[in-house]
């Protein structure tokens, strides 16, 4: 801005300064408007929704009474809160562990640049390129209890078929499997590019010191990939916490609530029944934001520590 060159008041300069300020605001406006219209306002609305007692009537007339944390209390006191919290944690945790470890293994594998490795790597990206509705519908069809190809395969090798999507004990596992499959490419790509930035001299030095492959991975690759791994995991966590489409398409969160996470629960409350419950729905959504925020702050703290 123009502050630095602001000098004692000659009228012409003051006018110039004023116009300079206008220009500065004009340049700033698009970003500020964008931030307010697409980030601040929706967040504020969501918070506002969760703090008022909405019925369909008060939603239309806009006179919903302020009810403090009542919606949050309703949500937490709900018998399904803790099971669904556990589903969310299990879904996110297990998905992340498998996505990351398989992605890492594949990245290390492809880093060796053998013939056809580029082609194979491209093939691994397919799950990422498919629209989620396509992959989720395909999984849903493959895991169908009666006509699914997975149960057909199990039956042909003499194993009892499993009700993947319709048994309370398997539904969550099934959606996790599908989500892991969808998440591997992302981890693979980011970790692979991280691997490219590790100088090969370090590996040579390690080899000269007599380190075997396993030691090279744990002593060289893994520590040097730590910053990349951290951001991969954080992004993965945010993506996975809010996964909705896969679960909704495959199981609708069912049977009963066996595969419902906070994301699907929030949707179900707000839009899944004939009478929308916007208040509790927004409350669950905000809980999700808080969960993501906690891990975001943890990440920033970790990064600061690393720098210092």
């Amino acid at each position: 801005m123009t502050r630095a060159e602001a000098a004692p008041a000659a009228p012409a300069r003051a006018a110039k300064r004023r116009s300079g300020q206008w220009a500065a605001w004009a340049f700033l406006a698009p970003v500020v408007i964008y931030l307010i219209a697409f980030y601040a306002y929706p967040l504020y609305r969501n918070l506002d929704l969760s703090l008022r007692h909405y019925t369909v009537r008060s939603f239309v007339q806009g006179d919903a009474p302020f009810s403090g944390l009542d919606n949050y209390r309703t949500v937490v006191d709900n018998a399904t809160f803790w099971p669904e919290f556990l589903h969310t944690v299990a879904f996110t945790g297990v998905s992340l562990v498998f996505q990351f470890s398989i992605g890492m293994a594949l990245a290390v594998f492809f880093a060796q640049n053998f013939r056809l490795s580029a082609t194979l790597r491209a093939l691994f990206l397919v799950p990422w390129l498919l629209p989620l509705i396509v992959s989720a519908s395909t999984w849903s069809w493959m895991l169908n209890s009666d006509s699914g190809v997975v149960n057909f395969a199990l039956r042909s090798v003499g194993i009892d078929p499993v009700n993947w999507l319709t048994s309370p004990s398997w539904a969550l596992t099934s959606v996790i499997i599908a989500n892991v499959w969808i998440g591997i490419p992302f981890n693979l790509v980011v970790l692979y590019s991280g691997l490219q930035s590790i100088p090969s001299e370090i590996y040579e030095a390690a080899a000269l010191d007599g380190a075997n492959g396993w030691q090279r991975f744990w002593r060289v690759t893994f520590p040097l990939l730590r910053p990349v791994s951290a951001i991969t995991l954080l992004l993965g966590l945010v993506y996975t916490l809010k996964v909705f489409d896969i679960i909704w398409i495959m199981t609708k969160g069912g049977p009963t609530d066996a595969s419902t996470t906070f994301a699907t629960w929030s949707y179900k409350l707000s839009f899944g029944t004939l009478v929308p419950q916007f208040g509790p729905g927004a409350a669950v959504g905000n809980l999700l934001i808080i969960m993501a925020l906690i891990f975001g702050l943890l990440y920033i703290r970790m990064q600061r520590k690393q720098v210092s």
Partner: protein
Amino acid sequence: MTLPRRGLRAIAALSIAVCLSAACSNADSSSPEGASSGGTYNIWDPYPQFDDSSDWVKLLTKCGTDAGVTVKRTGYDTTDLTNKALLAAQQGNSPDVLIVDNPVVSTLAEAGVLNTTDATAGIEPNLLAAGQQDGKTYGIPIGANTLALYYNKKVLDAAKVDPATVKDWASLTAALEKVKAAGKKGITFSAIGTEEGSFQFLPWFWGSGAQLTQLDSAQGVAALTLWTDWLKNGLAPNSVLNNTQTTSWQEFATGDYAFSENGTWQLANAKKAGFEYGIIPIPSQAGGTAPAPTGGEFVTTPVQTDTKRYDTTAKLVACLSSADNALTTDTTLSYVAATAAVQDKQVAANPDLKVWVEAVKAAKGRTSDNLGTKYPKISEPLWTAFQSALSGGKSPADALKAAQTTAASATK
């Protein structure tokens, strides 16, 4: 001195820009535009499958021309329309005519979005009931559909079952067992954990004599036990838990299944299925046709700030529900008409529809019995109950008992 001024300017600049991006001009999209003498009237419907060349949209345009106005029609996905309508009402730009799924009418009426109507002459009372609350009527059914049992003739012949003998639950289960013994599959339906599942469960629930106000009655438990026993004994596939009505139909269309619980809207697909089919009403426990829930939309007129528009709106609604036009609409949508006169015409033109007209006569609105907005709060525990019983989590009695507790506290 500079800082507050700067702040003020910032606020002014921002508000102008926000205004631009949010289009806060005063131009009212629904105000008369003068192109046609009477202006533009907005109609929203849940039939996005129809484009401007379809009979439905042509009818809307013609009704507009007759009333001297231009009709602007928008088709929304039916699951989207409730929220769209609520948001529009909140923003004060509701359409002039809104065509919505019948169980939504009471929700919108509760929200104060809809005007009442008294142009209900000739409409079957059981269909109209879904749009009535506390003695007031909030819309007119444009037509109705409901559920019945499709059967595959070849499969039944092979199992030596005569569909005419299926009169009650016992004879239906016996037929399913014969089909299974003959190496084919029994029945498909949709027991998914959404409103769609409740819609499919209700014919059995009501067919036992149970009431939505008492989910855990002995009759209700009997209905759920019927479903769980079918699953347990392999008469229905386990995939029903995840079936929508469409995927359930796809199972039936493989030709392996004897029966499918499905609606009027599958008639066109049934003709394409490549096997001989028939339709019987869903039997009740003790025999006779079970009351199935009514599907189909209502023509409603949302509240407007400009009350001068109502006269023309009434003309549009009258045009849409006139006998001739209702016949066209219901033929296009594959629905049964809402008035006995038009129903007779439909059966005369297509005798296949007779069983559907019977089923619609026996049918019942989900929000009827003055349940209104209580229905959704009962329906959700109900689908949770059959999901947990069918997946083996709870016994039918326990599942329904839990459902009744939830429903009772939600509708208090």
